[in-house]
């Protein structure tokens, strides 16, 4: 897979790091450490292994035909690229994550809508000075509920005190 340059700035770490939630910082650091270690290890290894010096060996090796045989076989040999067993797993996980993220975004938007509604209600409310008692009860339903549940003043569960 010499065509693709492996490990060269495919990942946008700057964008990644600012999006990491604070409670997952350590996991992020371990991932980054792994990545860096692998990158360093890879950069230290030559991309093509040095071929043996055939001409020199032809002079020195006494066994007739051995070097030629090796040379032929060496050039004919295709080193197999290791099988990829993990990518499918990761892709599957990504798909699952996409579904989860979409669900979360949907729920989150619903929550935002709810919060915005409450927010607007509070923002545009009639000032407390001008509220009538009925309007107040309608606006803040808790007090009314408590009054219905505990009809006697102070409208709280006295047994709990």
């Amino acid at each position, binding site marked *: *897979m010499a065509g693709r340059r492996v490990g060269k700035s495919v990942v946008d770490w700057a*964008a990644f790091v600012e999006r990491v939630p604070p409670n997952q910082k350590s996991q992020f650091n371990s991932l980054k450490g792994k990545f860096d270690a*692998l990158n360093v*290890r890879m950069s230290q290894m030559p991309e093509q292994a040095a071929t043996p010096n055939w001409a020199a060996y032809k002079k020195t*090796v006494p066994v007739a035909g051995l070097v030629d045989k090796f040379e032929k076989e060496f050039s004919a040999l295709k080193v197999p690229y290791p099988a990829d067993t993990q990518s499918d797993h990761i892709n599957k996980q990504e798909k699952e994550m996409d579904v989860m993220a979409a669900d979360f975004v949907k729920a989150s938007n619903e929550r*935002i809508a709810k919060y915005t509604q409450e927010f607007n209600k509070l923002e545009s409310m009639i000032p407390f000075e001008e509220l*009538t008692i009925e309007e107040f009860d309608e606006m803040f339903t808790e007090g009314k509920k408590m009054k219905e549940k505990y009809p006697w003043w102070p409208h709280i569960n006295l047994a709990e005190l």
Partner: protein
Amino acid sequence: MLSRLAMRNGSAIASIALRSSAPCVSAAPQKMLLSTSTPQRMPNKMPEEAGKIRFGFVPEEWFQFMYKKTGVTGPYVFGTGLILFLLNKEIYVMGPETVHAAVALGLFIYGIKKLGPGIAEWADKKREETLADAYAGRNANIAAYKDAIEHEKTEQWRLDGRKQLFDARRENVAMRMEIEYRERLQQVAQAVQKKMDYHVELENTKRRLEQQHMVRWIEQNVVKSITPQQEKDIMSTCISNLKNLAPTA
């Protein structure tokens, strides 16, 4: 009077009043006519401060009303005249109750002047505190909602980081594979090289051993070939050589 609540909750009269600009008296059906007063859309706000008064109980407006006709002293003259008239015609009769009333009034006035401001201040403070509490709660709620919305948005934004996460993981796998591949390449090359080095070394060792053997064999044969007579000759030659060397030394 129609309150805002009644308007909003859609009582029959309120809906009619809302729909038509005409007063509800004419708009409402006869049987629903509950009140003939002119409809007020909003409840009156109670004034914060009381109106101006003189002597502690006479409204300022009365003085203003009489000012146009009688001038400044008019109302006072009128008031004094009224009292004198009531006394003169014995419409109001002075008696022990009057004394009682005067004392009681004095006590009331004293009490109000003495305690009134304190109580008013306390009541104002209480009201301010209640309002402040209510507004604090409202503002806290508003801030909490704002924070919650902000938080949700941040979390949604953070979700985009998963693309980088999976990219990084895939990249890690790819790098592992690349490293493995390069290691294999190196292993092959090293194995071939080792094999050839072995042959070269084997040849070198064989040659060295043969050489050693040859040297030893020649040496032995030479030593064997030297006869005692030759040895004696060489000895004597050596001694004569030494003698020749001695004078020159």
